[in-house]
């Protein structure tokens, strides 16, 4: 296991954070998986399982039901005096934010690092919100690494700061940090197993009287954090001569630093690693020594506004450039091209923005060959009226958006399929069929379903139960037999849960049986009131991990009438037209799921003998 090695290793940014937590002797780690954060927790899960095999794992790890619970669990661990790590993607912090905002008030005891992995350019997210605002919003310190090495070091430092200030510390990455690999120097592991003790009687029950005491105390802690920021080794200046300055953080620093070499820039770079509170004294000195300063930060002009304020309050006449200058925008991630072109303009250099992007047909992700969601969508489309509204949710099945299924009309966040389903059912006379995955159902679908039952909203909820959290890398969830440490867990039964909260019409189908699934969908749609169909079949990628003899399929060319239903309606990626226009099945892609023979009107799809 690369992560448990020694010396210098090439690690993913996320793996480096996991290693940092292990070097800091973390006691409790919790998460809900989400790209680009997932590998932090997956690495810790793998370590826990591996070490658990040889006796007791030296820390506790949990894939919690959602980010809020993950944070609450770890906050309690911290108040028992243990070191805790909680990681999530940027929008996960929204889920956890109800706990986070008040947690800042009561603070922590054992060091607690909360990782937020942001996703500028929305590579795998529904928005590109800038979670640096959460540091300001909640009043919590924030560190931002630029490389895997820094990610590891900052994780360790964040534990130290957290214990010094008795405040949880936010560690913010972006996709280009979490999913970059780089050389990381590994230090000895200190992994000890321990239980803590909760000392009663502290200011930990936030009734109004207590909360009013805590708020000024929090602000006082943040003043001390500002001092730490001024002294932080992660806020440093590199001097390449000249009288102009660059202030940069995160991924933007990497591009700027390399531009200095490539373009031979004469300047000083102020690299901001502890980005909240900003190191005000150091910034004042820097601004005074510069004629002009350009601020390179992705997404919102957060540092820029605060630095402009610092300059104004201290009467410093330096020219400050930021968003709106050169190619610097408030949306999408920065690229080396954007930063080089902008710096060329700033330093008044000739720099060609070279290379035209070629037209190349898009190759978006699609549902895998053999994916049971395809069968579910096919069955629903067969029986649903054309104007049926399909609220969808977060998971692989969001790909139902693509043609030919187009079974995704509305999406906000985890669990929104059922909440918005209630609203569409009331507000229209159209049929409503909401799709939600098993992990997402437990995460945020459950309260919405309670709402739907209580108010007797008339629509169909299809729970796509594929036994795993597929999109983020097959993590367990409350329905699985084992937990994230490989221990036996108590699996929920979705059907019992749904019946238990009072849904009257519940059916369970295997979508690979199309006829049965279509009939169940029709009954559900005809039912007056709320109905739930649990469409249950394992993720095909799980299945191929336990691969048995598989029967694959081929087209009987004598029977095929080239109606193309398999290509244009079912759209499994294993089907293709050969050069002669005949339909073929790619044997390497066919998983033998057995659904396509049921959709062929001419019985032309047969088991290959």
């Amino acid at each position, binding site marked *: 296991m690369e992560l448990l090695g020694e010396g210098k290793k090439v690690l993913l940014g996320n793996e480096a954070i996991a290693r940092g937590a292990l070097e800091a002797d973390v006691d409790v780690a919790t998460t809900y998986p989400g790209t680009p954060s*997932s590998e932090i927790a997956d690495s810790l899960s793998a370590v826990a399982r591996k070490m658990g095999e040889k006796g007791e794992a030296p820390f506790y790890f949990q894939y919690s039901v959602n980010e809020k619970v993950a944070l609450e669990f770890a906050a309690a661990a911290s108040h028992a005096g243990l070191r805790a790590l909680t990681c999530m993607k940027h929008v996960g912090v929204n889920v956890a934010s109800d706990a986070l905002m008040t947690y800042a008030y009561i603070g922590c005891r054992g060091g607690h690092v909360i990782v937020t992995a942001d996703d500028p350019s929305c590579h795998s997210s529904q928005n590109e919100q800038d979670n640096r605002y959460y540091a300001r919003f909640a009043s919590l310190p924030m560190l931002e690494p630029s490389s895997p090495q820094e990610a590891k070091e900052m994780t360790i430092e964040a534990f130290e700061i957290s214990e010094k200030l008795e405040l949880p510390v936010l560690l913010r990455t972006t996709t280009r940090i979490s999913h970059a690999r780089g050389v990381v120097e590994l230090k000895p592991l200190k992994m000890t197993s321990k239980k803590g003790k909760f000392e009663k009687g502290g200011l930990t029950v936030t009734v109004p009287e207590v909360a009013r005491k805590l708020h000024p105390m929090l602000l006082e802690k943040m003043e001390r954090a500002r001092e730490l920021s001024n002294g932080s080794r992660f806020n440093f200046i590199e001097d390449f001569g000249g009288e102009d300055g660059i202030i940069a953080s995160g991924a933007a620093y*990497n591009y700027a630093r390399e531009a200095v070499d490539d373009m031979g820039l004469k300047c000083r770079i102020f690299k901001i690693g502890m980005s909240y509170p900003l190191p005000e004294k150091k910034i004042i000195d820097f601004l005074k020594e510069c004629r002009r300063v350009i601020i390179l930060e992705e997404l919102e002009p957060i540092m820029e506004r605060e630095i402009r304020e610092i300059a104004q309050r201290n009467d410093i006449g330096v020219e400050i450039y930021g968003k709106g200058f050169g190619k610097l925008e408030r949306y999408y991630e920065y690229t080396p091209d954007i930063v080089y072109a902008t710096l060329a303009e700033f330093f008044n250099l000739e720099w060609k923005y070279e290379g035209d992007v070629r037209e190349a*047909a*898009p190759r978006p992700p699609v549902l895998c060959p053999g994916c049971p969601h395809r069968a579910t969508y096919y069955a629903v489309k067969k029986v649903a009226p054309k104007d049926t509204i399909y609220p969808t949710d977060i998971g692989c099945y969001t790909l139902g958006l693509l043609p030919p299924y187009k079974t995704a009309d509305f999406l906000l966040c985890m669990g929104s399929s059922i909440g918005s389903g209630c609203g569409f059912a009331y507000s229209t006379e159209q049929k409503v069929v909401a799709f939600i995955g098993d992990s997402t159902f437990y995460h945020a679908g459950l309260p919405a379903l309670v709402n739907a039952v209580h108010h007797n909203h008339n629509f169909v909820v299809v729970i796509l139960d594929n036994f795993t959290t597929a999109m983020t890398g097959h993590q367990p969830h409350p329905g699985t037999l084992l937990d994230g440490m490989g221990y036996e867990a108590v699996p929920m039964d979705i059907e019992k849960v749904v019946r238990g909260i009072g849904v009257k019409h519940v059916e369970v189908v295997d979508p690979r049986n199309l006829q049965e699934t279509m009939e169940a969908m029709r009954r559900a749609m005809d039912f007056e009131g709320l109905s739930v169909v649990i469409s249950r079949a394992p993720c095909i990628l799980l299945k191929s991990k336990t691969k048995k003899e598989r029967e694959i399929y081929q087209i009987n060319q004598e029977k095929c009438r080239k109606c193309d239903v398999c290509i244009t309606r079912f759209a499994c990626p294993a089907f293709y037209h050969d050069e002669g226009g005949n339909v073929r099945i790619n044997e390497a892609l066919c998983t033998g799921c057995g659904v396509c023979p049921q959709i062929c009107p001419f019985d032309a799809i047969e088991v290959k003998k």
Partner: protein
Amino acid sequence: MKKSVIIAGVGGQGVITAANILARASLKAGHNVVTSELHGMAQRGGNVECNVRIGNVYSPMVRRESVEAIISFEPLEALRNLHKVKRDGVVLTDVNPIIPPLISLGIGDYPPVEKIFEEIEEHCTLIKINADELARKAGSILTKNIVMLGAFHALGIFPIEEETLLETIRESFHERYAEANAMAFKLGKEAIESVGDMH
């Protein structure tokens, strides 16, 4: 010293594994190395790109017309990344198209492969190999990424000893694949040597 390569292909072809091997071998050879990759929604049969950069580098991302080579596991993916390779750089590509599923539905168009190759040749040096065929010859289509690494190694762009790369490949897989992988690497390498010194 600064050298960069893009490894491109389609989800499931072993692109990320190849990038990872090259990165670890680079460190073993004493180079600083950074890479980039994308996970999650960006996979699932979609296009995959990894950058591997060695030497005096900070950024895992690359500029237009800045990389020494593209190693593409599929022709269209070479074209998609072509603007990032230097005019005096190399595109090393497999010749077997994988048609994106949406094209079967009439969305987008896959140009004739010859057209793709022409466009690449207008930009830089093109080296084509039939890596699918070589991988099958080595024992499994799954060794395609190792065929591509063998071919890339023969171009001599990254200063890494052959044995270092082979050792990293051996460490990356179960013993039972060692023979097929060694054969795949050799076939890839020989495919380039038979083309002659184009670079």
